[in-house]
């Protein structure tokens, strides 16, 4: 056989190969391998470490562990793993690993009293349940932050509350509250549940015109008052949408991520297609999607000032996670 003919035959063999689509069993193996990769060890949370933490806090180091699998920043339908810490309950059947919290943890600040009843950790979220006693008919301006020993601030995902009928003229109402947050990304030794008072932000908006394409090494920096700053690292102009990549550094990253906007040359706000999506929650990195724009279109980023929090130390609860 001549080499030329062999060459043609070999080239024709290309068409004989499989269609190249990864079969499900290979894809599943790849996913399980990725999910099982250990977190990098001996790492503190990078953002908090930049914010001048005290010596004691800064020396806390958390070893990574395979137990706390990563969910890639997106909420999943059903958790890969789940762990429940409950007050006074027996070990639960099923996939959840239940640990009894003892003694009960309660805190009081004036007329507000909270008792921790259950903490649920899973690959998709972290849930805190409380019994609450509070003044009747008063809407307390209090928020609830969850952080851990790495300094990572968990993404707030919503809350539920239920307060039963209160006797007439009773100064106190009793009920339960459930707070949901994003998952853990390392294996923390403990969580810290930190109630805080809302405060009003001081200062004015900060505007930056886009004169050159921001990059990760040369981001656009937008100060957000006392809370910190947002860093725009890229703008991608697509046919269907424009994607803005950014990360935030500061004391209240999840509020900061929603406190900046984009304006056109007429000073009109360009509505985003949906909320900021965390691409790497652990580093507070996000993308924001806008309608299609062109690179020559004058754009201005506007950062809103964001207030820091006044934490209510009397109500703070530290939840140990080691058995």
């Amino acid at each position, binding site marked *: 056989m001549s080499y030329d003919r062999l060459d043609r035959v*070999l080239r024709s063999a290309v068409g004989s190969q499989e269609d190249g689509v990864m079969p499900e069993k290979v894809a599943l193996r790849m996913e399980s391998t990725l999910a099982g990769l250990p977190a990098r060890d001996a790492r503190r949370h990078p953002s908090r470490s930049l914010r001048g933490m005290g010596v004691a806090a800064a020396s806390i180091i958390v070893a990574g562990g395979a137990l706390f699998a990563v969910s890639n920043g997106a909420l999943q339908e059903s958790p890969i793993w789940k762990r429940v810490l409950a007050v006074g309950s027996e070990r639960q059947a099923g996939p959840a690993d239940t640990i009894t919290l003892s003694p009960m943890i309660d805190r009081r600040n004036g007329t507000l009293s909270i008792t921790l009843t259950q903490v649920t950790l899973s690959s998709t979220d972290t849930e805190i349940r409380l019994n609450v006693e509070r003044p009747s008919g008063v809407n307390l301006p209090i928020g609830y932050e969850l952080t851990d020993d790495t300094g990572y601030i968990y993404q707030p995902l919503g809350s539920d509350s239920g307060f039963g009928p209160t006797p007439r003229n009773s100064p106190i109402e009793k009920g339960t509250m459930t707070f949901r947050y994003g998952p853990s990304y390392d294996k923390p030794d403990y969580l810290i549940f930190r109630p805080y008072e809302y405060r009003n932000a001081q200062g004015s908006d900060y505007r930056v015109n886009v004169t050159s394409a921001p990059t990760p090494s040369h981001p656009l920096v937008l100060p957000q008052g006392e809370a910190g700053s947002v860093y725009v690292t890229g703008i991608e102009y697509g046919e269907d949408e424009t994607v803005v990549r950014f990360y935030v550094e500061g004391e209240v990253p999840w509020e900061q991520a929603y406190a900046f906007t984009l304006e056109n040359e007429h000073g009109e706000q360009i509505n985003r297609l949906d909320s900021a999506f965390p691409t790497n929650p652990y580093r507070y990195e996000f993308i924001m999607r806008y309608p299609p724009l062109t690179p020559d279109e004058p754009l201005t980023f506007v950062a809103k000032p964001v207030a820091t929090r006044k934490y209510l130390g009397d109500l703070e609860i530290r939840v140990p996670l080691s058995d």
Partner: protein
Amino acid sequence: MSDLAWETDVKLACAGEKMAFERLVRRMGGELYRMSRTLLRDDEDCADAIQETILSAYKGVVKLREPAYFKTWLFRILIRECRRIRKKNAYRFERPAAEGTVDMGAPDWDLLAALEQLDEPLRTAVKLHYLADLPLSRVSELMEVSEGTLKSRLHRARKQLAKWLDTTHGRRMGNEL
């Protein structure tokens, strides 16, 4: 994933960010599979090769000096793993069971069987160039040899294949395996 997102993730992965590494691997999943399927003939082996590649790459990504070569570096690890698995399993080429009808587009099983008989590194060179349809420049990069060396290897491989396939005995090679 845009170029910018890719570059950002490569840098983050090299800095030790697990999630960035995961995104990159997922992005390359199809290419990794196709490459492994070119070098191995069984999906289970491909899954093994990809798994070992991921573990090895995750361990070494923080030492990668040139983030720009992440893709090439990952493919090189995969090729190495495929060769290792092939060696371990003492690969044998098996012709699929004959169907009742004649498929005019059916591959040349004798040729594919002969390919499996080539020694390394000739076999990988032929497969990457002809079956994976990669240009010479890319194959030489992945195999870490000059284009001249690669051409020489391909020449030797074709010579060997032509010799086998020109003989009647050689044309039956696939049946005899």
